[in-house]
């Protein structure tokens, strides 16, 4: 447990597509800006309809996206969530629930805008991911 815990978050972030364009000092700044947080199996991270949620990036583990109790998607290492709620300033429309021990880094909603402006490459990666989600949703509908 100790060894796994001692993993340098900077190294993990360096391996995620979201932060792939950042330099080492920038990754260190990101690691100091986000807070590490662990969730136990079954624990809710985002709560449908609750204000004040944050932006999360998964470092390890899996989580389910549930709307009114129905699972709509599964998230894993490198995935992020909470950004829609933060960007729109609205409560999340889904619960996100840990399916097994889940390790994330979290950024307060109010800090997300200045962070994305300071790191436009991360913002671009988020846009790419959102575009993929939109495309997949449209494919599903058609």
């Amino acid at each position, binding site marked *: *447990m*100790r060894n796994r*815990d*001692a993993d340098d978050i900077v190294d993990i972030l360096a391996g995620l597509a979201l932060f792939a364009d950042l*330099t*080492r*000092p*920038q990754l*260190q*700044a990101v*690691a*100091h*800006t986000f*807070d*590490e*947080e*662990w969730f*136990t199996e079954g*624990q*809710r991270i985002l*709560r449908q*309809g*609750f*204000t*004040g*949620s*944050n932006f999360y990036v998964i470092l390890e583990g899996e989580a389910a996206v549930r709307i009114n109790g129905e699972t709509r998607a599964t998230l894993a290492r490198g995935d992020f969530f909470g950004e829609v709620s933060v960007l729109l*300033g609205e*409560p999340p429309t889904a619960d996100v629930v840990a399916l097994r021990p889940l*390790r994330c880094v*979290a*950024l*307060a*909603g*109010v*800090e997300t805008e200045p962070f994305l402006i300071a790191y436009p490459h991360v913002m671009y990666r988020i846009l790419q991911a959102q575009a993929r989600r939109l495309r997949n949703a449209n494919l599903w509908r058609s």
Partner: protein
Amino acid sequence: MAQLNAQLFPPGQYPVVVVGSGPGGLQLSYYLQRIGLEHATISADPGPGGMFRRYPLFQRLNTWSKPYADADRGTRPYEWYDWNGLVADEPELRSLVSQMMEGISYFPSRAEMEKGLVAFAERARVRVRYGCRWGSTRRDGDGFVLGTSDGEYRCRVAVFAVGMAEPWKPSIPGMEDVPHYVDTKPAKAYAGKRVFLIGKRNSGFEIADALLPWARQIILGSPRPPVLTVLTGGGVRAKYLVPYEDHVLGGGVFVLEAAIERVDRTREGWRVVTSETAGGAREFVVDDVIACTGFTTPLGDLPDLGVATFMQGRLPRMSPFWESTAVPGIYFSGTITQGAFGLRKHGGSGNSAAVGGFRHNAKVLAEHLAGKFGITVPRTTLKPEEVIPYLLSEATHAPELLNQKAYLARVVSFYKSRGITDEGILPLGYFVDEPGPDAIAMSVETDEHGHHHPAAYVRREGHVSEHALPPNALLNFEGMPYQQQLAGALSGLV
């Protein structure tokens, strides 16, 4: 003391063992005693106070205790204005730290804080076996055996209130030789020196503030910009912001966003090699370097027992009731409870790192442990017409809700059989995620604009909905508009 100690809590079997005699241990022990849950409290220290026997280094706290405030000293509402005193049910035990203050500052000195804690331990008769050092832990059936310098303690529940005051440094080449915050010399010793402070949190700014009249140049460096309480509600306290103002005005203090790559000892002093977050490398040749890189929890062998940790092993992972998520029966009190984040609304996670916050966690924990041992904590019932004024009074005056925003809540349940029951103060995260009867949890929160406001969480048939009430410029949430809005949220329940 030694003779007295020999009679107190000798090694043996106890339902609960509490380790630590800082504010976290004393506060928990006080409430366990009030509830009547048998326990032994042991401490390696020779007397009460914990980290306040030594720190803060420059001998003045950064959290207020206001001798005169908009509530009478000795009352429960006054506890919101005294973030440093331990809390109590008896008026004569309340606000002891502010009673020790000499009126120079509304931030108590370290000595005043320590005096207040000692007075609390004495007057509340919080009994501790001092000079008894916990050294090992092992499982024993459904309990634990704590090996100590005085012998073995067996218990079903062990609570560790051992603080978070052990120096911690990140693994940066050369860092092992760099003096830590705790090794800082008297400010005068830095007269005319160039000093590089690694870290931009409270401890870094505390030292910068102390060195301002002495150092020739002060540089604070770490990868991220400083987070300031005056802007975000959390981070570096205003008391230490003079060096930051100096930096803004270009007065000779430099606050840099840079990763520290290496620290080298040189013949005359130190060389600090940095990579700036915005790009580019820079070297600093300075007389002194101090690692203001924070602290870790002295968890001893608990990780070997299976206690899971995070933040590079600096804090245990824990439940909303501050129980290890990996080893049931191991609990934490005091500043370690900052490892339980609650709902993290707008990024906030209560104020559990500081006495002002964790003292309230200790009462909640004591009542939770009482339940595990079959002790019923008396609860009062309310008439329907009392519910709304009571909850709004709590939102306006309750120190638990004001100190632990969006973290602790006043809970009232609506039982069909037993009527309306005041359940006391509970962790908000527990209330919203666990099943229970129809109920309301009243909390105070800070929104994205920094405005404080009450928030009600109403559970009906297992579903919890949030009802945010508006802010009030004078933080008075008891008026008619609040009564009407809360009545709407509770429609059908009262």
